[in-house]
Protein backbone atom coordinates (compact mmCIF):
# COMPACT_ATOMS: atom_id res chain seq x y z
CA UNK A 1 0.00 0.00 0.00
CA UNK A 2 1.54 3.24 -1.05
CA UNK A 3 -0.23 6.52 -1.57
CA UNK A 4 1.98 8.50 -3.82
CA UNK A 5 -0.45 11.06 -5.13
CA UNK A 6 -0.21 14.26 -3.12
CA UNK A 7 -3.62 15.15 -1.72
CA UNK A 8 -4.57 18.79 -1.30
CA UNK A 9 -3.05 20.14 1.92
CA UNK A 10 -6.48 20.68 3.51
CA UNK A 11 -7.46 17.05 2.89
CA UNK A 12 -4.13 15.83 4.18
CA UNK A 13 -4.60 17.84 7.35
CA UNK A 14 -8.15 16.63 7.82
CA UNK A 15 -7.00 13.03 7.47
CA UNK A 16 -4.15 13.67 9.90
CA UNK A 17 -6.63 15.01 12.44
CA UNK A 18 -8.96 12.07 11.91
CA UNK A 19 -6.07 9.63 12.35
CA UNK A 20 -4.95 11.50 15.46
CA UNK A 21 -8.40 11.47 17.07
CA UNK A 22 -8.64 7.74 16.35
CA UNK A 23 -5.18 7.09 17.78
CA UNK A 24 -5.78 9.22 20.87
CA UNK A 25 -9.07 7.44 21.46
CA UNK A 26 -7.38 4.02 21.30
CA UNK A 27 -4.70 5.21 23.72
CA UNK A 28 -7.39 6.65 25.96
CA UNK A 29 -9.06 3.26 26.24
CA UNK A 30 -5.72 1.57 26.86
CA UNK A 31 -4.60 4.03 29.56
CA UNK A 32 -7.78 3.18 31.48
CA UNK A 33 -7.82 6.20 33.83
CA UNK A 34 -10.67 7.84 31.89
CA UNK A 35 -12.69 4.67 31.25
CA UNK A 36 -12.35 3.39 34.83
CA UNK A 37 -12.74 6.60 36.85
CA UNK A 38 -14.61 8.80 34.42
CA UNK A 39 -17.05 6.22 33.01
CA UNK A 40 -17.11 3.06 35.14
CA UNK A 41 -17.00 4.61 38.58
CA UNK A 42 -19.94 7.06 38.20
CA UNK A 43 -22.01 4.26 36.65
CA UNK A 44 -21.14 2.06 39.62
CA UNK A 45 -22.17 4.87 41.99
CA UNK A 46 -25.47 5.16 40.13
CA UNK A 47 -26.09 1.44 40.53
CA UNK A 48 -25.22 1.59 44.25
CA UNK A 49 -27.37 4.68 44.95
CA UNK A 50 -30.13 3.26 42.79
CA UNK A 51 -30.16 0.03 44.75
CA UNK A 52 -30.91 1.82 48.04
CA UNK A 53 -34.73 1.82 48.33
CA UNK A 54 -34.88 5.06 50.35
CA UNK A 55 -33.04 6.86 47.51
CA UNK A 56 -35.94 6.09 45.20
CA UNK A 57 -38.67 7.44 47.55
CA UNK A 58 -39.84 11.05 47.11
CA UNK A 59 -38.73 13.16 50.04
CA UNK A 60 -40.43 16.25 51.45
CA UNK A 61 -36.96 17.68 52.28
CA UNK A 62 -36.12 17.65 48.58
CA UNK A 63 -39.39 19.22 47.47
CA UNK A 64 -40.96 15.92 46.48
CA UNK A 65 -37.94 14.66 44.51
CA UNK A 66 -36.10 11.44 45.23
CA UNK A 67 -32.46 11.42 46.36
CA UNK A 68 -31.65 9.82 43.05
CA UNK A 69 -33.29 12.67 41.11
CA UNK A 70 -30.89 15.00 42.87
CA UNK A 71 -27.88 12.69 42.48
CA UNK A 72 -28.06 12.02 38.75
CA UNK A 73 -26.99 15.60 37.89
CA UNK A 74 -24.24 15.29 40.52
CA UNK A 75 -23.01 12.16 38.77
CA UNK A 76 -23.08 13.98 35.43
CA UNK A 77 -20.85 16.61 37.04
CA UNK A 78 -18.64 13.76 38.33
CA UNK A 79 -18.21 12.42 34.79
CA UNK A 80 -17.43 15.86 33.38
CA UNK A 81 -14.90 16.63 36.12
CA UNK A 82 -13.12 13.30 36.04
CA UNK A 83 -12.70 13.40 32.27
CA UNK A 84 -11.90 17.10 31.84
CA UNK A 85 -10.06 18.02 35.01
CA UNK A 86 -8.28 14.82 35.99
CA UNK A 87 -7.75 12.62 32.95
CA UNK A 88 -7.11 15.30 30.29
CA UNK A 89 -4.25 17.15 32.08
CA UNK A 90 -2.51 13.87 32.96
CA UNK A 91 -2.29 12.99 29.27
CA UNK A 92 -1.22 16.45 28.09
CA UNK A 93 1.36 17.10 30.81
CA UNK A 94 2.67 13.56 30.27
CA UNK A 95 3.00 14.20 26.53
CA UNK A 96 4.96 17.34 27.19
CA UNK A 97 7.15 15.63 29.79
CA UNK A 98 8.01 12.84 27.35
CA UNK A 99 8.87 15.19 24.50
CA UNK A 100 5.91 14.05 22.40
CA UNK A 101 4.59 17.58 21.87
CA UNK A 102 8.09 18.74 21.00
CA UNK A 103 8.48 15.93 18.48
CA UNK A 104 5.17 16.93 16.90
CA UNK A 105 6.45 20.48 16.54
CA UNK A 106 8.94 19.17 13.97
CA UNK A 107 6.14 17.68 11.81
CA UNK A 108 3.81 19.54 9.44
CA UNK A 109 0.77 19.11 11.69
CA UNK A 110 2.24 20.54 14.88
CA UNK A 111 1.24 19.80 18.46
CA UNK A 112 -1.96 21.88 18.38
CA UNK A 113 -3.71 19.02 16.66
CA UNK A 114 -3.01 16.55 19.43
CA UNK A 115 -4.64 19.03 21.79
CA UNK A 116 -7.69 19.22 19.55
CA UNK A 117 -7.74 15.43 19.33
CA UNK A 118 -7.63 15.15 23.12
CA UNK A 119 -10.49 17.62 23.50
CA UNK A 120 -12.52 15.65 20.93
CA UNK A 121 -11.88 12.40 22.78
CA UNK A 122 -12.78 13.90 26.16
CA UNK A 123 -15.92 15.60 24.85
CA UNK A 124 -17.00 12.48 22.98
CA UNK A 125 -16.54 10.35 26.07
CA UNK A 126 -18.49 12.82 28.22
CA UNK A 127 -21.41 12.87 25.79
CA UNK A 128 -21.59 9.07 25.51
CA UNK A 129 -21.17 8.51 29.25
CA UNK A 130 -23.81 11.07 30.20
CA UNK A 131 -26.21 9.49 27.70
CA UNK A 132 -25.57 6.04 29.20
CA UNK A 133 -25.92 7.43 32.72
CA UNK A 134 -29.30 9.00 31.91
CA UNK A 135 -30.48 5.85 30.14
CA UNK A 136 -29.49 3.56 33.04
CA UNK A 137 -31.09 5.94 35.56
CA UNK A 138 -34.28 6.04 33.50
CA UNK A 139 -34.56 2.35 32.64
CA UNK A 140 -33.06 0.87 35.81
CA UNK A 141 -34.28 3.19 38.52
CA UNK A 142 -37.16 5.20 37.05
CA UNK A 143 -35.43 8.60 37.10
CA UNK A 144 -37.18 10.81 34.54
CA UNK A 145 -35.08 12.11 31.63
CA UNK A 146 -34.27 15.83 31.90
CA UNK A 147 -37.54 17.68 31.34
CA UNK A 148 -35.85 20.77 29.88
CA UNK A 149 -33.60 18.73 27.60
CA UNK A 150 -32.11 21.65 25.64
CA UNK A 151 -31.20 23.39 28.88
CA UNK A 152 -29.61 20.19 30.18
CA UNK A 153 -27.48 19.86 27.04
CA UNK A 154 -26.39 23.51 27.23
CA UNK A 155 -25.56 23.15 30.93
CA UNK A 156 -23.55 19.97 30.29
CA UNK A 157 -21.56 21.54 27.44
CA UNK A 158 -20.84 24.69 29.45
CA UNK A 159 -19.73 22.52 32.37
CA UNK A 160 -17.39 20.66 30.00
CA UNK A 161 -16.03 23.96 28.69
CA UNK A 162 -15.44 25.32 32.21
CA UNK A 163 -13.82 22.15 33.55
CA UNK A 164 -11.70 21.60 30.44
CA UNK A 165 -10.43 25.16 30.74
CA UNK A 166 -9.41 24.49 34.35
CA UNK A 167 -7.96 21.14 33.21
CA UNK A 168 -5.87 22.84 30.50
CA UNK A 169 -4.75 25.37 33.09
CA UNK A 170 -3.57 22.50 35.29
CA UNK A 171 -1.83 20.92 32.27
CA UNK A 172 -0.10 24.26 31.61
CA UNK A 173 1.19 24.50 35.19
CA UNK A 174 2.07 20.88 35.90
CA UNK A 175 5.65 19.99 34.97
CA UNK A 176 4.94 16.25 34.72
CA UNK A 177 2.08 13.83 34.20
CA UNK A 178 2.35 12.76 37.83
CA UNK A 179 2.15 16.36 39.02
CA UNK A 180 -0.93 16.91 36.85
CA UNK A 181 -2.51 13.82 38.37
CA UNK A 182 -1.79 15.11 41.89
CA UNK A 183 -3.16 18.60 41.20
CA UNK A 184 -6.23 17.30 39.36
CA UNK A 185 -7.05 14.84 42.12
CA UNK A 186 -6.51 17.48 44.79
CA UNK A 187 -8.93 19.84 43.02
CA UNK A 188 -11.40 17.06 42.36
CA UNK A 189 -12.54 16.48 45.95
CA UNK A 190 -13.39 20.07 47.00
CA UNK A 191 -15.02 20.60 43.61
CA UNK A 192 -17.17 17.51 44.03
CA UNK A 193 -18.00 18.56 47.58
CA UNK A 194 -19.41 21.86 46.33
CA UNK A 195 -21.22 19.95 43.62
CA UNK A 196 -23.11 18.16 46.42
CA UNK A 197 -21.65 14.67 46.04
CA UNK A 198 -21.63 14.10 49.80
CA UNK A 199 -24.27 16.61 50.88
CA UNK A 200 -26.91 18.00 48.53
CA UNK A 201 -26.37 21.71 47.93
CA UNK A 202 -29.88 22.48 49.18
CA UNK A 203 -28.99 20.98 52.57
CA UNK A 204 -25.67 22.81 52.97
CA UNK A 205 -25.24 25.64 55.47
CA UNK A 206 -25.78 29.03 53.87
CA UNK A 207 -22.07 29.96 53.63
CA UNK A 208 -21.24 26.73 51.83
CA UNK A 209 -24.22 27.27 49.54
CA UNK A 210 -22.80 30.67 48.54
CA UNK A 211 -19.40 29.16 47.81
CA UNK A 212 -21.07 26.37 45.91
CA UNK A 213 -22.93 28.82 43.67
CA UNK A 214 -19.67 30.50 42.73
CA UNK A 215 -17.78 27.21 42.20
CA UNK A 216 -17.82 25.84 38.65
CA UNK A 217 -19.32 22.51 39.64
CA UNK A 218 -21.83 24.04 42.06
CA UNK A 219 -23.10 26.19 39.23
CA UNK A 220 -23.08 23.18 36.91
CA UNK A 221 -25.07 20.96 39.28
CA UNK A 222 -27.64 23.71 39.95
CA UNK A 223 -28.09 24.24 36.23
CA UNK A 224 -28.35 20.50 35.59
CA UNK A 225 -30.84 19.97 38.42
CA UNK A 226 -33.00 22.89 37.29
CA UNK A 227 -33.13 21.65 33.71
CA UNK A 228 -33.74 18.09 34.87
CA UNK A 229 -36.84 19.40 36.64
CA UNK A 230 -38.01 21.30 33.58
CA UNK A 231 -36.70 24.83 34.18
CA UNK A 232 -34.32 26.64 31.88
CA UNK A 233 -31.06 27.02 33.89
CA UNK A 234 -30.57 30.36 35.59
CA UNK A 235 -28.39 32.75 33.48
CA UNK A 236 -26.23 33.38 36.55
CA UNK A 237 -25.17 29.73 36.65
CA UNK A 238 -24.58 29.55 32.91
CA UNK A 239 -22.67 32.81 33.13
CA UNK A 240 -20.54 31.49 36.01
CA UNK A 241 -19.53 28.45 33.96
CA UNK A 242 -18.86 30.57 30.87
CA UNK A 243 -16.69 32.89 32.95
CA UNK A 244 -14.62 29.96 34.24
CA UNK A 245 -14.25 28.71 30.67
CA UNK A 246 -13.04 32.07 29.37
CA UNK A 247 -10.76 33.07 32.26
CA UNK A 248 -9.05 29.71 32.69
CA UNK A 249 -9.04 29.09 28.94
CA UNK A 250 -7.17 32.34 28.29
CA UNK A 251 -4.80 31.76 31.20
CA UNK A 252 -4.06 28.24 29.93
CA UNK A 253 -3.49 29.52 26.39
CA UNK A 254 -1.06 32.10 27.77
CA UNK A 255 0.82 29.73 30.06
CA UNK A 256 0.78 26.51 28.08
CA UNK A 257 4.18 25.44 26.75
CA UNK A 258 4.77 22.73 24.20
CA UNK A 259 8.04 21.78 25.84
Amino acid at each position, binding site marked *: *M*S*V*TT*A*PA*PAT*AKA*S*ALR*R*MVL*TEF*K*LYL*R*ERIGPVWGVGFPLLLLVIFGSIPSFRRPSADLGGLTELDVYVPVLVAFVVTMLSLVSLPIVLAG*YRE*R*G*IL*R*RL*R*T*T*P*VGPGRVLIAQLCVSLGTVVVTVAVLLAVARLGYGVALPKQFGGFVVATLLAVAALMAVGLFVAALAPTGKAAQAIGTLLFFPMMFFAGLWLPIAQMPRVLQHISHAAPLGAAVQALQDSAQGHWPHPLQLGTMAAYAVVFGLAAAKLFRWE
Partner: protein
Amino acid sequence: MPPVIEVRNLHKRYGDTVAVDDVSFAVQEGEIFGILGPNGAGKTTTVECIEGLRNRDRGEISVLGLDPQRDRAELTQRVGVQLQDSQLPDRLRVAEALELYSSFYRDPTDWRALMDTLGLADKADTRFGKLSGGQKQRLSIALALVGGPRVAVLDELTTGLDPQARRDTWALIEDVRSRGVTIVLVTHFMEEAERLCDRLALIDAGRVVTVDSPAALAERAQVQQRIQFRPSAPVDDRLLADLPDVTEVTHRGDLVLITGNSNALGAVTSLLARRGVVAQQLRVEQASLEDAFVELTAKHSDSKN
Protein backbone atom coordinates in the same frame (compact mmCIF):
# COMPACT_ATOMS: atom_id res chain seq x y z
CA MET B 1 25.63 22.72 -6.50
CA PRO B 2 24.56 24.91 -3.58
CA PRO B 3 24.88 23.28 -0.16
CA VAL B 4 21.79 21.58 1.29
CA ILE B 5 22.27 23.29 4.61
CA GLU B 6 24.17 26.47 5.17
CA VAL B 7 24.70 27.99 8.59
CA ARG B 8 26.44 31.35 8.86
CA ASN B 9 27.48 33.03 12.09
CA LEU B 10 24.72 31.43 14.12
CA HIS B 11 24.35 32.93 17.58
CA LYS B 12 21.89 31.85 20.27
CA ARG B 13 21.72 32.68 23.95
CA TYR B 14 19.39 31.71 26.77
CA GLY B 15 19.31 34.65 29.14
CA ASP B 16 22.91 35.27 30.10
CA THR B 17 24.16 31.92 28.84
CA VAL B 18 25.57 31.85 25.35
CA ALA B 19 24.67 28.42 23.97
CA VAL B 20 25.95 29.02 20.46
CA ASP B 21 28.44 31.80 20.01
CA ASP B 22 29.43 31.77 16.36
CA VAL B 23 28.81 28.68 14.26
CA SER B 24 29.18 28.40 10.50
CA PHE B 25 29.28 25.35 8.25
CA ALA B 26 27.80 23.98 5.05
CA VAL B 27 26.41 20.50 4.41
CA GLN B 28 26.58 19.10 0.89
CA GLU B 29 23.92 16.99 -0.76
CA GLY B 30 24.13 13.26 0.03
CA GLU B 31 26.77 13.44 2.75
CA ILE B 32 26.69 12.34 6.35
CA PHE B 33 27.75 15.41 8.22
CA GLY B 34 28.70 15.02 11.85
CA ILE B 35 28.44 17.61 14.58
CA LEU B 36 30.83 16.52 17.27
CA GLY B 37 31.66 18.12 20.56
CA PRO B 38 31.65 17.72 24.33
CA ASN B 39 28.43 17.96 26.33
CA GLY B 40 27.16 21.52 26.49
CA ALA B 41 29.15 22.61 23.44
CA GLY B 42 26.05 23.88 21.67
CA LYS B 43 25.47 20.94 19.30
CA THR B 44 21.81 20.41 20.12
CA THR B 45 20.97 24.11 20.11
CA THR B 46 22.59 24.39 16.67
CA VAL B 47 20.47 21.62 15.18
CA GLU B 48 17.35 22.90 16.95
CA CYS B 49 17.81 26.19 15.11
CA ILE B 50 18.18 24.21 11.85
CA GLU B 51 14.99 22.25 12.61
CA GLY B 52 13.09 25.45 13.37
CA LEU B 53 12.45 24.42 16.98
CA ARG B 54 14.31 27.48 18.24
CA ASN B 55 14.67 30.95 16.86
CA ARG B 56 18.21 32.15 16.39
CA ASP B 57 19.32 35.46 17.83
CA ARG B 58 21.75 36.24 14.99
CA GLY B 59 23.10 34.70 11.82
CA GLU B 60 21.72 33.04 8.72
CA ILE B 61 20.41 29.52 8.19
CA SER B 62 19.29 28.06 4.91
CA VAL B 63 17.95 24.51 4.65
CA LEU B 64 17.07 23.38 1.11
CA GLY B 65 16.79 27.08 0.35
CA LEU B 66 14.30 27.59 3.19
CA ASP B 67 14.61 29.76 6.27
CA PRO B 68 13.72 27.56 9.27
CA GLN B 69 12.00 30.46 11.02
CA ARG B 70 10.12 31.95 8.12
CA ASP B 71 9.31 28.81 6.14
CA ARG B 72 8.68 26.39 9.00
CA ALA B 73 5.61 24.79 7.47
CA GLU B 74 7.47 23.82 4.31
CA LEU B 75 10.61 22.88 6.22
CA THR B 76 8.74 20.32 8.34
CA GLN B 77 7.60 18.60 5.13
CA ARG B 78 11.14 18.12 3.89
CA VAL B 79 13.29 17.66 6.97
CA GLY B 80 12.99 14.52 9.09
CA VAL B 81 13.95 14.87 12.71
CA GLN B 82 15.02 12.53 15.45
CA LEU B 83 15.18 14.30 18.79
CA GLN B 84 17.31 13.48 21.76
CA ASP B 85 15.15 11.92 24.54
CA SER B 86 11.88 12.16 22.68
CA GLN B 87 9.44 9.34 23.34
CA LEU B 88 6.03 8.09 22.29
CA PRO B 89 3.03 7.14 24.40
CA ASP B 90 3.87 3.81 26.06
CA ARG B 91 0.74 2.10 24.79
CA LEU B 92 1.07 3.19 21.17
CA ARG B 93 1.95 0.28 18.88
CA VAL B 94 4.77 0.44 16.35
CA ALA B 95 2.50 0.19 13.28
CA GLU B 96 0.08 2.75 14.73
CA ALA B 97 2.87 5.24 15.32
CA LEU B 98 4.14 4.87 11.75
CA GLU B 99 0.68 5.11 10.24
CA LEU B 100 -0.12 8.17 12.35
CA TYR B 101 3.09 10.00 11.49
CA SER B 102 2.80 9.15 7.80
CA SER B 103 -0.62 10.86 7.77
CA PHE B 104 1.09 14.14 8.69
CA TYR B 105 2.94 14.47 5.39
CA ARG B 106 2.01 15.57 1.91
CA ASP B 107 3.89 12.77 0.21
CA PRO B 108 4.82 10.11 2.75
CA THR B 109 6.93 7.01 2.15
CA ASP B 110 5.25 3.63 2.40
CA TRP B 111 5.40 3.12 6.15
CA ARG B 112 5.02 -0.66 5.90
CA ALA B 113 8.08 -0.94 3.66
CA LEU B 114 9.95 1.32 6.04
CA MET B 115 8.93 -0.88 8.96
CA ASP B 116 10.40 -3.88 7.11
CA THR B 117 13.61 -2.07 6.20
CA LEU B 118 14.19 -1.06 9.79
CA GLY B 119 13.61 -4.59 11.03
CA LEU B 120 10.49 -3.68 12.96
CA ALA B 121 7.98 -5.80 11.02
CA ASP B 122 7.75 -8.46 13.71
CA LYS B 123 7.22 -5.70 16.30
CA ALA B 124 4.33 -4.08 14.39
CA ASP B 125 1.85 -4.82 17.19
CA THR B 126 4.24 -4.20 20.06
CA ARG B 127 3.65 -1.22 22.30
CA PHE B 128 6.34 1.45 22.46
CA GLY B 129 6.80 0.86 26.20
CA LYS B 130 7.71 -2.78 25.57
CA LEU B 131 10.41 -2.12 22.94
CA SER B 132 14.11 -2.42 23.72
CA GLY B 133 16.35 0.63 23.52
CA GLY B 134 17.59 -0.33 20.06
CA GLN B 135 14.05 -0.94 18.79
CA LYS B 136 12.85 2.41 20.14
CA GLN B 137 15.75 4.08 18.39
CA ARG B 138 14.95 2.32 15.12
CA LEU B 139 11.32 3.37 15.39
CA SER B 140 12.45 6.90 16.04
CA ILE B 141 14.58 6.79 12.89
CA ALA B 142 11.64 5.34 10.96
CA LEU B 143 9.45 8.23 12.12
CA ALA B 144 12.12 10.69 11.00
CA LEU B 145 12.04 9.09 7.54
CA VAL B 146 8.34 8.38 7.11
CA GLY B 147 7.66 11.77 5.54
CA GLY B 148 10.15 11.01 2.75
CA PRO B 149 12.54 13.83 3.76
CA ARG B 150 15.55 15.00 1.76
CA VAL B 151 17.40 15.84 4.94
CA ALA B 152 17.37 13.94 8.22
CA VAL B 153 18.72 15.45 11.43
CA LEU B 154 19.55 12.82 14.00
CA ASP B 155 20.49 13.86 17.53
CA GLU B 156 22.41 11.47 19.81
CA LEU B 157 21.39 8.53 17.72
CA THR B 158 23.01 5.71 19.65
CA THR B 159 23.30 7.05 23.19
CA GLY B 160 22.25 4.35 25.62
CA LEU B 161 22.44 1.51 23.10
CA ASP B 162 24.49 -1.63 23.57
CA PRO B 163 27.43 -2.15 21.17
CA GLN B 164 25.54 -4.52 18.85
CA ALA B 165 22.49 -2.25 18.59
CA ARG B 166 24.84 0.67 17.97
CA ARG B 167 26.53 -1.12 15.08
CA ASP B 168 23.17 -2.13 13.61
CA THR B 169 22.02 1.47 13.78
CA TRP B 170 25.15 2.66 11.99
CA ALA B 171 24.58 0.20 9.16
CA LEU B 172 21.05 1.51 8.93
CA ILE B 173 22.18 5.12 8.63
CA GLU B 174 24.56 4.21 5.82
CA ASP B 175 21.66 2.54 4.09
CA VAL B 176 19.52 5.65 4.46
CA ARG B 177 22.25 7.79 2.97
CA SER B 178 22.60 5.43 0.04
CA ARG B 179 18.97 6.26 -0.73
CA GLY B 180 19.95 9.88 -1.25
CA VAL B 181 19.01 11.40 2.09
CA THR B 182 21.45 13.96 3.42
CA ILE B 183 22.14 13.29 7.07
CA VAL B 184 23.20 15.56 9.89
CA LEU B 185 24.35 13.54 12.85
CA VAL B 186 24.88 14.99 16.30
CA THR B 187 27.11 12.88 18.47
CA HIS B 188 29.67 12.84 21.19
CA PHE B 189 30.93 9.37 20.28
CA MET B 190 34.23 9.48 18.41
CA GLU B 191 33.83 5.96 17.12
CA GLU B 192 30.46 6.81 15.64
CA ALA B 193 31.77 9.96 13.98
CA GLU B 194 34.81 8.12 12.63
CA ARG B 195 32.75 5.28 11.25
CA LEU B 196 29.86 7.21 9.71
CA CYS B 197 30.69 10.77 8.85
CA ASP B 198 32.08 12.07 5.60
CA ARG B 199 32.89 15.35 7.27
CA LEU B 200 32.75 16.64 10.79
CA ALA B 201 32.25 19.99 12.44
CA LEU B 202 34.02 19.95 15.75
CA ILE B 203 32.17 22.30 18.09
CA ASP B 204 33.41 23.49 21.44
CA ALA B 205 32.06 26.24 23.69
CA GLY B 206 29.61 27.43 21.06
CA ARG B 207 32.16 27.76 18.27
CA VAL B 208 33.30 25.64 15.35
CA VAL B 209 36.85 24.53 16.02
CA THR B 210 37.32 22.93 12.64
CA VAL B 211 35.48 21.19 9.79
CA ASP B 212 37.19 18.28 8.07
CA SER B 213 37.01 14.56 7.33
CA PRO B 214 37.55 12.28 10.37
CA ALA B 215 40.82 10.92 8.93
CA ALA B 216 42.21 14.36 8.19
CA LEU B 217 41.28 15.53 11.67
CA ALA B 218 43.06 12.60 13.28
CA GLU B 219 46.12 13.21 11.14
CA ARG B 220 46.23 16.90 11.89
CA ALA B 221 46.51 16.28 15.56
CA GLN B 222 50.18 15.62 16.20
CA VAL B 223 49.53 12.96 18.71
CA GLN B 224 52.12 10.78 20.31
CA GLN B 225 52.29 7.06 19.93
CA ARG B 226 51.74 4.84 22.92
CA ILE B 227 53.59 1.52 22.92
CA GLN B 228 53.28 -1.26 25.46
CA PHE B 229 54.94 -4.68 25.64
CA ARG B 230 56.25 -7.36 27.99
CA PRO B 231 60.04 -7.75 27.48
CA SER B 232 61.33 -11.36 27.37
CA ALA B 233 64.34 -10.19 29.43
CA PRO B 234 64.81 -7.07 31.62
CA VAL B 235 65.77 -3.91 29.72
CA ASP B 236 67.33 -0.87 31.36
CA ASP B 237 64.80 1.98 31.30
CA ARG B 238 67.57 4.48 30.69
CA LEU B 239 68.47 2.87 27.37
CA LEU B 240 64.88 3.28 26.21
CA ALA B 241 64.48 6.77 27.63
CA ASP B 242 67.68 7.90 25.91
CA LEU B 243 66.23 7.16 22.48
CA PRO B 244 65.60 10.55 20.85
CA ASP B 245 62.11 9.56 19.69
CA VAL B 246 60.96 8.45 23.17
CA THR B 247 59.59 10.94 25.67
CA GLU B 248 58.55 8.75 28.58
CA VAL B 249 59.04 5.25 29.94
CA THR B 250 56.90 3.80 32.74
CA HIS B 251 55.92 0.37 34.07
CA ARG B 252 52.70 -1.33 34.92
CA GLY B 253 53.42 -4.70 36.51
CA ASP B 254 55.83 -6.36 34.12
CA LEU B 255 54.58 -4.28 31.19
CA VAL B 256 56.72 -1.49 29.80
CA LEU B 257 54.79 1.58 28.63
CA ILE B 258 56.46 4.00 26.25
CA THR B 259 55.26 7.26 24.77
CA GLY B 260 57.02 8.93 21.94
CA ASN B 261 56.63 10.44 18.52
CA SER B 262 55.62 8.54 15.39
CA ASN B 263 59.15 7.08 14.98
CA ALA B 264 59.27 5.70 18.50
CA LEU B 265 58.06 2.23 17.53
CA GLY B 266 60.89 1.67 15.04
CA ALA B 267 63.51 2.95 17.45
CA VAL B 268 62.28 0.82 20.33
CA THR B 269 61.97 -2.42 18.34
CA SER B 270 65.43 -2.08 16.83
CA LEU B 271 66.95 -1.40 20.26
CA LEU B 272 65.24 -4.51 21.61
CA ALA B 273 66.39 -6.55 18.61
CA ARG B 274 69.99 -5.48 19.12
CA ARG B 275 69.85 -6.67 22.70
CA GLY B 276 68.10 -9.93 21.78
CA VAL B 277 64.96 -9.04 23.73
CA VAL B 278 61.57 -10.04 22.34
CA ALA B 279 58.66 -7.65 22.83
CA GLN B 280 55.77 -9.88 23.82
CA GLN B 281 52.12 -8.77 23.72
CA LEU B 282 53.18 -5.70 21.79
CA ARG B 283 50.45 -3.09 21.41
CA VAL B 284 50.62 0.24 19.68
CA GLU B 285 47.93 2.89 19.97
CA GLN B 286 47.72 5.16 16.96
CA ALA B 287 46.49 8.72 16.95
CA SER B 288 42.72 8.53 16.85
CA LEU B 289 39.95 10.98 16.29
CA GLU B 290 39.52 10.99 20.03
CA ASP B 291 43.06 12.24 20.53
CA ALA B 292 42.50 14.83 17.86
CA PHE B 293 39.31 15.87 19.57
CA VAL B 294 40.96 16.30 22.94
CA GLU B 295 43.92 18.12 21.47
CA LEU B 296 41.93 20.41 19.20
CA THR B 297 39.42 21.37 21.87
CA ALA B 298 42.21 21.93 24.38
CA LYS B 299 44.10 24.16 21.93
CA HIS B 300 40.92 26.02 21.33
CA SER B 301 40.36 26.74 25.03
CA ASP B 302 44.01 27.79 25.38
CA SER B 303 43.80 30.28 22.57
CA LYS B 304 40.71 31.75 24.16
CA ASN B 305 42.26 32.32 27.58
